[in-house]
């Protein structure tokens, strides 16, 4: 069955055998990295107790490691790194504007609500 509503093409949808070898090596390197980061996260989570002196560092370490993992998933696995600069910007810039705004709201309003709950507590 031939359908004319499907655009029968994709740019950069093919590569050679040799290039495939290079790509596969890169995939396994990224896999190793993601696994390693996850292992480190779990180790720290199980070892360092919340509330200990190290905890603030561990907590921010988790956030940084998460962003590193996200970077590799998006750039390597989802091939956004291979797309055009314009497409990268169209996807990432609006997202980060919204998310940073929402994080700001979270901290600002969260603190205000928490204070109000404590001040006007019925208990």
């Amino acid at each position, binding site marked *: 069955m031939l359908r004319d509503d499907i655009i029968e093409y994709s740019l950069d949808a093919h590569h050679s055998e040799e290039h495939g070898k290079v790509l596969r090596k890169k995939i396994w390197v990224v896999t190793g990295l993601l696994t390693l980061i996850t292992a480190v996260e779990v180790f720290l989570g199980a070892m360092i107790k919340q509330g200990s002196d190290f905890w603030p560092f561990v907590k921010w370490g988790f956030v940084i490691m998460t962003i590193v993992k996200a970077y590799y998933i*998006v750039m390597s696995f989802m091939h956004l790194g291979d797309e055009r600069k314009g497409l990268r910007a169209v996807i990432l810039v609006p997202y980060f504007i919204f998310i940073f705004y929402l994080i700001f709201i979270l901290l600002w309003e969260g603190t205000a609500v928490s204070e109000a709950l404590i001040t006007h507590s019925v208990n």
Partner: protein
Amino acid sequence: MSGHATKQIDNKTLWGGKISPFSTSYGKLMMWFFLVSDALTFGGLLIAYGFTRHASTDGAWPIGEETFNSLPGLGHGYPLIYVALMTFILIVSSVTMVLAVEAGHRMDKKGVTRWLLATIIGGAFFVGSQAWEWSHFIHGSEFGKVELADGSQAVVHAKGFGELENFTVIEAGRHHKKGDKITEDLMHEYQHAAAAGHIHDGVITLHDGSKAKIAKRANEHMELRIKSDGAKYKIGDVIPHAQAINMYEEVINSGEAGRVIYGANLQQNEYGPQQYGQFFFFITGFHGFHVFSGVIINILILFGVIGGVYHKRGHYEMVEKTGLYWHFVDLVWVFVFTFFYLV
């Protein structure tokens, strides 16, 4: 203009308007747009969770390594290991998906079939693991969370739960006769009665209205960790075994409803504030549903691959597009893992 193609694109491959924005195909770009909007949904959910946790004044927020410390068949004492395993499974299934896409670029139909199948199996394992995790979360621990006499709330950390041996009926009900020894379904009856306040001084009132004496071994080394302030105990206090064991029995045998909570539902949970349980179900549920949908979509695409649909078309872009969705699901889990389980 970065939006326009720099190299010549074959006339029949251009979009309807005879251009090709960002030199991508229509399907891939639309998938990216969908993923951005879905990422905002997940971002919004996680930020709502963060907001609630930040603003919460309703006792201590649960700690991931204390709440999720079990393995199937092996019991407690394995902090975060199971969820780490789930994360690893999902990452691996993401890797097999990239390998399927890579094989597609070489028009290697066998390779695509193999790797796509591996991805589906990984995804199914993840959904199954999540079902176990939910079941465990809903049923909770053997001890539950208790409300102490001073109004504070405490979770129990213990070496072992003293085994329930039997119930000896001392007052007949609709079903059991006096003198009967009940040996089945004890734990279920016990927890149900304890939560409803139907245990008083070692005597349990069963479903059918009969009363029975409980034979139970002593709990092994337990301590109570305070999670919500009371008149005497404050958040962070730990009550040692010698006192804890009596205080715990006092709560169970009080005959008052609602002093002990087992597991979780949308109204209450034994781990922490009500919202904690609600967000757990909503966020992991929403993500789990994405994984489930992804598995179904991958299965449909696998049928296409095996049937040779994409091979005839000349490219495996369909696999690439579902691949984008599948990686996105992995990406979301990376964030859920950090903000729900680790931090």
